[in-house]
């Protein structure tokens, strides 16, 4: 048999990788296979990808403007051929508002994750590795932040700084990082006394190097899972703030604010509140399924390896 090129699958699954890239890709491929073995997880991923797609191509997908409505003719229309999800009390197409609102949802979720997760990771790993008074001080600070329910702190913040989606994001991020710090600290405590960390100490690695290059990579999986699962809660908190009028301000098509304004018509024109409600439901579900799937895929201990 002549040396035919390996199939891509063989190349990824080989037990003799020839380069760093091949080893990493092979490992990622195995994780992907574990992930896709779970149907619901794939559904979750599909929902989130759909969200990304809608947000990215909003101007192309939305049939009407989300801000300007036809007040004269199209107030509170029932869902039909012209307006697929009907219109709200200002004659704006609900479908278009939902589509543009996806951008706001995504903005909130991504920014909160990007702010809160690194803070939590850093605080948790440093706290767990250093121990002693550093650990005590950092954990007390974490406890202080944990004591505030998201909504209450957000209210306080917004009262101080004024309503708006940026302030809402900051407020939510500030209440989201403590659980991540807890998770990172727990993982750090588990691995701190293991031989491979001792071995790296014995090479002369500084504590910062150990934390950054050796301990943090071990915490990342748990953190990714937790952040993904939290996203549903973040969306709901943002929606809650929007509902209270403290998040995105009109005329921004934030889904929570849409529910708030649709409240008045819930009996006769139920679709005005129900449509954004359903959108929140679907996206939260998507994140939950994705998070569950990631947890199973990233935890190498499950399944017959």
């Amino acid at each position, binding site marked *: 048999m002549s040396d035919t090129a390996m199939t891509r699958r063989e190349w990824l699954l080989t037990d003799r990788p020839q*380069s760093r890239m091949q080893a990493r890709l092979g*490992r990622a491929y195995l994780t992907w296979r574990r992930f896709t073995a779970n149907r619901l997880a794939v559904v979750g991923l599909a929902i989130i990808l759909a969200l990304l797609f809608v947000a990215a191509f909003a101007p192309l997908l939305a049939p009407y403007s989300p801000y300007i409505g036809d007040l004269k003719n199209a107030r509170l229309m029932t869902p039909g051929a012209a307006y697929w999800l009907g219109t709200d009390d200002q004659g704006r197409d609900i479908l278009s508002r939902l589509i543009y609102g996806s951008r706001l949802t995504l903005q909130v979720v991504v920014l909160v994750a990007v702010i809160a997760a690194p803070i939590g990771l850093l605080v948790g790993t440093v706290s767990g590795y250093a121990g002693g008074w550093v650990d005590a001080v950092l954990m007390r600070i974490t406890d202080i932040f944990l004591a505030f329910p998201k909504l209450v702190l957000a209210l306080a913040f917004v009262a101080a700084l004024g309503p708006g989606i940026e302030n809402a994001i900051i407020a939510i991020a500030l209440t989201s990082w403590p659980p991540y710090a807890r998770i990172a600290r727990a993982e750090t405590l588990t691995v701190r006394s293991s031989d*491979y960390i001792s*071995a*790296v100490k014995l090479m*002369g690695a500084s504590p910062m*190097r150990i934390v950054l290059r050796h301990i943090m990579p071990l915490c990342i999986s748990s953190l990714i899972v937790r952040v993904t699962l939290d996203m549903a809660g973040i969306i709901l908190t943002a929606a809650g703030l929007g509902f209270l009028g403290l998040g995105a301000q009109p005329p921004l098509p934030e889904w929570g604010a849409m529910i708030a304004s649709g409240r008045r018509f819930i009996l006769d024109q139920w679709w005005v509140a129900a449509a954004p409600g359903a959108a929140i439901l679907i996206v939260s579900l998507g994140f939950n399924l994705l998070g569950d799937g990631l947890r199973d895929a990233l935890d*190498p201990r499950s399944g017959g390896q």
Partner: protein
Amino acid sequence: MTAALKIDKLRVVYDDFVALKDVNLTVNTGESFGLVGESGSGKSTLLRAVAGLAPVSGGTIDVNGKRLGRTRDKAFYRQVQMVFQDPYGSLHPRQTVDRLLLEPLAIHGFADTEKRILRALDEVGLGSSFRFRYSHQLSGGQRQRVAIARALILEPSILLLDEPTSALDASVQAEVLNLLEQVRRDRKLTFVMVSHDLGVITHMCERLMVMQNGQEVERLEAGDLATRNVAQDYTRNLLVASEGFVRGA
């Protein structure tokens, strides 16, 4: 000629527990010295104290003539390295062999890392095909070889070995012991080796110390064990136990 390792009245206390009680020890350069004992004897604690991984509350440690303080500096790690017992716990689960071997080189600022990594793998009998594997893709014996390669890549003169083969199958143990002997010969290393297995210790070491409850029981030459020339009852018990079960006794 200065001794490679000189320990004087070493005392290690963990909270309330005294792990080492005033232990004295001298290991000559180029020698292979064994520490034997059961669990709780303090043999591993002694190695860890030398490595700077255990809290010293009394006594002194001198390495190659230099007195060690509370912490260890980078120069120390170029002289002394350690091989741990558990092959499944001593390699980072998320790093490839290549990355594991690169780390010490990166910390100490070596330039020709590619060449050194290949040479290290070659020295422990692992081909370059192992270079990008993760530790869970290696057998116990292969992992221990990687651990040895990692310990040797900084070119130390003293190697601390904490039960390096007790977690391995008998046939793999023989291979790893042979490798260690060869490495010691080639690089003229000083070994301080801990084991609970008298057979392994007498095979690898010239002199040995028996420990119990954090203290020295007896000091012997390897040949003394073979001729049963032992003074203490505890040592005699260990010898008898290592011979296996006697039925009807």
